[in-house]
């Protein structure tokens, strides 16, 4: 019986001891596609819609290139219909008690469990990924995610009291997104990429040898084979990898390729590239899959510098026998997730996200929930209706400012400089703008800041940032409290300045008083920054750290010239950020008044205040690549510009879309939202074991 079969016979295999094919049947995936006539429409309002006159895109098997199905290209009206349907069901869905929503979610989890074979074969078929990776990783994790969020929904009324749903959420997923990442809603820039690997010089040869031995055992093949480590990602991915390797080789890099790769189909072997000069063009580019680029380093400090010298900040792992050193490196890495002596672990309760160009949104854990919730006490706001905004010219030029007429009085009002690097400096443009009081008379002159001043301010902030982050939360709190005391000593001046700006005496006094309180509140909160410990799947804790963003730019609102300035400054400083602030345009004098105290109390360069044309300064800040986050409170147009321009380095943007905020209210002036925005999360995995 065996002898009549084609292919190698048992007695041959007995000698070679090779692996054979272990195909997973994908009949159920094809059968399901057949129920859709191999043509997938839009899933809207619980129905498959197939609107006419839409062009379609083929969905292909990346290995064979065979057409599996076609999908529709949606048009604007299709999106409108979907949003409308979502809006309708939001009404009933958001009114459901948490327990009922939890039931729906856990029912969906059960559905996944019942039909997991369909899901994993379909996923593997379409993406070319190894089936065991999808089966053992994605599908079970997807279930865990649903279950986790079911529990969250169940406890929402208590644990997240007051937080409201955002409303209809639009998710745009890139083409490389897999099923599990749809489940995670992982931010697009976290998308797949290769690895770069840093190895200490002293163990370089030994590590590479081990790596090569391990790579030699990897098996590539059709994703639906149950005994394959790597699938294929289509011809385009193979060509990309090929180009990269050729370029690296031409630059003198050593290339090691190993593994058992089928000759038919768009497979590419796992490849180790070493000795690539760091200045080579491809060393800067994203490493394509399935490549590993290894570089040696001499000291831990150098490794940190090399690891952080990339625009990406998704995740990283640290391998070291010395826990102290591993933790130090873990703290220093500018990424969203750090694994100590492990890699690629995930758990629904642990947030996943990133920083820098890997985006700043979070998924999973408490941080993932906040992304979709409105803080308590903040009204629901729809985005302002879109109007044409010329991104090229917004804030490009500064209208010239002329002297406000002859100055009266015994001595002329001295112009305030820009507060940069801990002292008042003359602006690069050497010109000033008059600030009128409420009655139209001249209140004072402030400096007209520009692009060069912003550059200087950002540099000063970067110099001050490491020192400030290094201070203990207690020390930071003490500084904020000292600033509050200084603000109170300056109360008479501040009050009279507010009065000249047209604020009533009582209201002015209240604003000054509240401002001092804000500083103390955030000083106190600095001591409890929300670091937390979680226990995840593998034995050992996950530290959820709240880390400073780095250099944060704040464009303050026009209203509440003192209170808004302080309310934004305090949480930002409390969480360890260094700031570049553009104060209220109508009345920047209060912020500058406070700068006189900051000059003596704060480290030089920690807070920099730049006055001038707000649109112009916003443009300069948003287009600056070395600012980690931007808070903008101003016009709807300014908000849109800030968001658009910040996409250049994917800095985290918080813009008010032209809506005024009640700064004197606790919820909007000192609520948890500010604390969430002022720091980013890092998940530090610490698997236990000897």
């Amino acid at each position, binding site marked *: 019986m065996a*002898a009549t079969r084609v292919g190698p016979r048992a*007695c041959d295999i*007995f000698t070679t*001891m090779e692996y054979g094919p272990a195909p997973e049947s994908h009949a159920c995936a094809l059968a399901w596609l057949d129920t859709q006539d191999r043509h997938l429409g839009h899933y809207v309002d619980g129905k498959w819609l197939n609107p006419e006159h839409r062009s379609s895109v083929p969905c292909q098997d990346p290995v064979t290139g065979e057409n599996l199905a076609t999908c529709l290209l949606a048009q604007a009206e299709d999106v409108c219909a979907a949003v409308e349907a979502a809006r309708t069901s939001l009404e009933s869905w958001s009114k459901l008690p948490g327990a009922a929503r939890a039931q729906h979610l856990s029912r969906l989890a059960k559905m996944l469990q019942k039909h997991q074979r369909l899901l994993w074969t379909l996923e593997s078929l379409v993406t070319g990924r190894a089936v*065991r990776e999808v089966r053992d990783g994605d599908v079970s994790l997807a279930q865990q995610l649903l279950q986790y969020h079911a529990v969250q929904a169940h406890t929402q009324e208590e644990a997240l009291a007051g937080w409201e749903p955002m409303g209809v959420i639009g998710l745009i997923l890139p083409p490389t997104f897999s099923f599990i990442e749809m489940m995670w809603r992982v931010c697009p820039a976290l998308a797949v990429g290769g690895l770069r690997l840093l190895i200490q010089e002293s163990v370089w040869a030994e590590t590479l040898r081990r790596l090569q031995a391990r790579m030699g055992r990897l098996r590539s093949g059709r994703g639906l084979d*149950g005994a394959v480590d790597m699938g294929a990602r289509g011809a385009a991915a193979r060509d990309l990898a090929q180009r990269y390797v050729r370029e690296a080789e031409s630059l003198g890099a050593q290339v090691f390729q190993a593994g058992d790769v089928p000759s038919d189909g768009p497979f590419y072997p796992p490849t180790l590239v070493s000795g690539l000069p760091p200045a080579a063009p491809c060393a800067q580019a994203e490493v394509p899959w399935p490549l590993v680029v290894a570089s040696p380093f001499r000291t831990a400090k150098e490794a940190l510098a090399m690891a952080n010298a990339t625009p990406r900040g998704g995740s990283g792992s640290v391998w070291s*026998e010395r826990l102290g050193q591993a933790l130090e490196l873990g703290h220093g890495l500018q990424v969203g997730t750090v694994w100590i002596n*492990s890699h690629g672990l995930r758990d629904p309760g642990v947030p996943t996200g990133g920083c820098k160009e890997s985006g700043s949104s979070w998924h999973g854990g408490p941080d993932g929930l906040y992304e979709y919730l409105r803080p308590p006490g903040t009204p629901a706001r729809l985005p302002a209706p879109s109007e044409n905004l010329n991104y090229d010219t917004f804030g490009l030029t500064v209208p010239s400012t002329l002297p406000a007429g002859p100055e009266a009085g015994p001595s002329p009002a001295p112009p305030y400089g820009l507060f940069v690097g801990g002292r008042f400096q003359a602006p690069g443009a050497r010109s000033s703008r008059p600030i009128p009081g409420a009655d139209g008379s001249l209140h004072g002159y402030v400096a007209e800041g520009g692009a060069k001043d912003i550059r200087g301010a950002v540099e000063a902030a970067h110099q001050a940032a490491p020192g400030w982050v290094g201070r203990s939360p207690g020390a930071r709190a003490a500084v904020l409290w000292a600033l509050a005391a200084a603000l109170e000593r300056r109360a008479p001046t501040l009050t009279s300045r507010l009065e000249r700006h047209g604020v009533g005496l009582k209201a002015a006094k209240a604003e000054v008083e509240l401002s001092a309180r804000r500083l103390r509140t955030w000083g106190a909160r600095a001591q409890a920054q929300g670091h937390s410990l979680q226990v995840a799947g593998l034995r050992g804790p996950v530290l959820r750290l709240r880390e400073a963003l780095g250099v944060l730019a704040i464009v303050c609102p026009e209203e509440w010239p003192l209170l808004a300035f302080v309310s934004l400054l305090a949480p930002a400083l409390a969480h360890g950020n260094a700031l570049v602030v553009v104060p209220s345009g109508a009345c920047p004098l209060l912020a500058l008044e406070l700068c006189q105290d900051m000059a003596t109390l704060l480290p030089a360069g920690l807070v920099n205040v730049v006055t001038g044309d707000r649109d112009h300064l916003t443009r300069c800040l948003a287009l600056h690549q070395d600012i980690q986050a931007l808070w903008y409170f101003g016009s709807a147009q300014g908000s849109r510009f800030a968001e658009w321009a910040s996409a250049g380095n994917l800095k985290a943007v918080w813009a008010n879309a032209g809506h005024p905020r009640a700064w004197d209210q606790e919820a909007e002036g000192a609520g948890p939202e500010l604390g969430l925005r002022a720091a980013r999360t890092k998940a530090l995995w610490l698997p236990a074991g*000897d």
Partner: protein
Amino acid sequence: MSAHNQGTELGKGPGLWAECEVTWKHEEAKEYCNLEGSGKAHREDLSWISKIQVNQPAVLRRAEQIQARRTVKKEWQAAWLLKAVTLIDLTTLSGDDTASNVQRLCYKAKYPIREDLLKALNMHDKGITTAAVCVYPARVCDAVRALQAAGCNIPVASVATGFPAGQTHLKTRLEEIRLAVEDGASEIDVVINRNLVLTGQWEALYDEIRQFRKACGEAHLKTILATGELGSLTNVYKASMIAMMAGADFIKTSTGKETVNATFPVAIVMLRAIRDFFWKTGNKIGFKPAGGIRSAKDSLAWLSLVKEELGDEWLTPELFRIGASSLLSDIERQIYHHVTGRYAAYHDLPMS
């Protein structure tokens, strides 16, 4: 030197690690196999042993993954299962062992799979037997006699040195080895002294195993680490290294009598130790998991683990054994199913 030992001297040239070149010249590496070396060089080497650290969470994760990542089906499965048969040390280690059940075991070792099933696979003339039979020292004579009667030269392995606890005097433990060898055992499975591992007396452990090695003479030495009682994976690695340096031909996971026997995490650590030792000295040491390996599926997982970690060259009886008693009958049932398409009743297959 037994035929197996010839196989362990394949690699030539100095070891990879720079610091080892001083102490691990090839001549010396050869010498310690013959037990004529001074031992001084190896003592100095023990300092690096204490620095070894095993990343337990990473080992656990790899162990979890490796079982799910490889599978063989159809013809491949049948061939792999037959290979597994040839790697089995068919074992009986019970208090009630007598000449009759030892004899049955020996016949099963000679004819592990029903002849017609082998014929269907065209494997009947490949001389498929188990790798060895493994018994208590007092039953070695019975086994040798039975195998002679069956007309085959399957080696007889004997456990020794106060198996399974090893808690007897060194003098009697050494005497036990000599007696078993005298009775005709050509392979000796010794248990190490766990006390020495747990108290960190690596040099004393090294000396003991060297004495075992000497007592074995020409016989093959398998060193049972009893990993379930060593406390940590780091200790497993260190004990593996010491055993190999002291001249073991095989390192073996467990006696089968501990509460925890052959597990994948432990195996990964031992296999990595074997690979490191090979890279260092060019000597290939064998691996023997034992205890709790009962199903055909288990045996396939062990084969693929060794294939992944050490490569195809280790998939021979000279370098890989599986200690088992009930495994063989499950493999035979699977082969029966592969050939006939039916599941066998227990009475369809001869008992051992």
